[in-house]
């Protein structure tokens, strides 16, 4: 690991001793004192030990729209998510960050049970959306997915008109009232900051839009069904900086009314737009707290090393 500009005192160069789960650090000074540069979680994980996440107390102060409860996932024999427990606050933007393969996208796709579509997947634990279990036997997955909107990395407008894209979820629910469809279409496109650009060509093909516009269309489509939570999987990765800026501004406007869970590998984006940030590594939740704290003074040295670009 690349050292700090001023290295820690010589006494901490001794190899850290970690017999069992690392203690939940209360302050960076405390974790620095406990066996040098934190009780080294990464080594503990490599040994297959259970490691407690560092949760900032602020995450428990908010009402939660989504409760993730001791959630685990296996792809066949390989365990990809390890005992994840975290509340996702209502009306806020929560970012999931971590290096490739850490499980952030896997976790996101579990929220609306997209992973059901993969045969080899097995889960344990539960998630609750506004108190309703997501994984209990007998849950209607289709109805569940209507309560959530998902936007993917690559914009995926349907090969239809702009109008039909937006109102798709209403159509498949059997709604035919033209006034209602128009109203929902306008409200959603305004909500996605796209109305002014497309209001005169609602019946043109969505595929003719630019990448950034297509992505905002996908967001409009997602919010048309008035979901309880929006799941965004690296929504700006395929966009140029200006389109990215527009989508980020949009996310800021949507929060409050919507709760947003966003996966991003762009840490500056996470620090710009999110209220809370969860750092994941090797399928585990490492640290979770207010974004300002994660990016100024995280509890764990591992989090500090990741956000400063020293690993991952």
């Amino acid at each position, binding site marked *: 690991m*690349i050292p*700090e*500009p*001023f*290295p*820690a*005192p010589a006494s901490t160069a001794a190899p850290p001793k970690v017999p069992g789960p690392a203690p939940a650090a209360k*302050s*960076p*000074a405390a974790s*620095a004192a406990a066996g040098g540069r934190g009780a080294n979680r990464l080594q503990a994980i490599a040994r297959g030990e259970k490691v407690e996440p560092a949760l900032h107390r602020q995450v428990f102060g908010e009402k939660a729209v989504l409760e993730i409860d001791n959630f685990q996932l296996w792809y066949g024999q390989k365990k990809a998510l390890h005992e994840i427990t975290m509340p996702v606050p209502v009306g806020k933007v929560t970012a999931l960050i971590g290096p490739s393969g850490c499980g952030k996208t896997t976790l996101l796709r579990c929220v609306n049970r997209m992973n059901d579509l993969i045969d080899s997947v097995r889960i344990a634990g539960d998630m609750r959306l506004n108190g309703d279990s997501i994984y209990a036997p007998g849950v209607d997955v289709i109805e569940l997915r209507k309560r959530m909107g998902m936007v993917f990395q690559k914009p995926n407008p349907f090969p239809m008109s702009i109008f039909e894209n937006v109102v798709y979820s209403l159509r498949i629910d059997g709604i035919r009232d033209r006034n209602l469809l128009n109203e929902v279409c306008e409200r959603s496109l305004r909500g996605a900051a796209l109305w002014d650009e497309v209001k005169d060509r609602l019946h043109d093909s969505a595929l003719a839009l630019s990448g950034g516009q297509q992505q905002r269309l996908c967001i409009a489509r997602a919010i048309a069904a008035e979901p309880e939570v929006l799941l965004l999987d690296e929504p700006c990765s395929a966009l140029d900086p200006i389109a990215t800026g527009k989508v980020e501004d949009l996310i800021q406007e949507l929060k409050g009314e919507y709760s947003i869970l966003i996966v991003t590998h762009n*840490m*500056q984006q996470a*620090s710009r737009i999110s209220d809370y940030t969860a750092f994941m590594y090797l399928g585990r939740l490492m640290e979770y707290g207010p974004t300002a704290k*994660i*990016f*100024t*003074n*995280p509890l764990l040295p591992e*989090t*500090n090393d990741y*956000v*400063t*670009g*020293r690993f991952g």
Partner: protein
Amino acid sequence: MTQFLIRQLDKLKTMILKLGGYVEQSLQQAIQAVETRDVALARTVIAQDEQIDLLEVDVEEECLHTLALYQPVASDTRFVLAVIKINTDLERIGDLAAHLAEQAIFLAEEPETNTALFDFQGSSRRVWSMVKMSLDALVTRDVALAQQVRAADTEVDAAHRKVYRRVEEEITKHPHKVRQLIDLMNISRQLERIADHAVNIAEDVIFMVTGEIHRHDAEDTDQVPSRR
């Protein structure tokens, strides 16, 4: 991206330590000039202040570049912020060392006076040691050492208040010595201010390491403010 940032942070570290070295040397020489009434040495200290001022400007510019070009976060941000603040305190210590050197020249022009009323040796060693300890704490990220610097300031403040009272008494008893007595008073005040800047540096080190801001703590507010 990381390598650019790492190199830049190393550069800042080198520059701030270089500045620290200049300032430590100036302070040491100024103290010596006062003790030995060495006017030539005093003039050297005053001339050296320019290189301290120029380096302070360079450090600030490098910090600005670091923030704008590399957008550091977390511990790196705290490091850059600490460097910006310590930079200012070091430059002020350099100025005060130059003022001390000026006082040395004034004192050398007067007949030797009874400096027993002011333990210059003791006070100056204490203050120089505080400056050195605060810079050592910066290099080794030693919070305990930085806390010692904060604690040492109490004694320096008390010594300065004592000097003020003694000078007051002496001026009424020996009014013809007023110039030297005022010079001694100024020297005591400069040492006390240098100590305050050393405490600032120590507090910035604590912030850099722990992310906690320790300033204006309750224990300090009981103190009678130093008479100037």
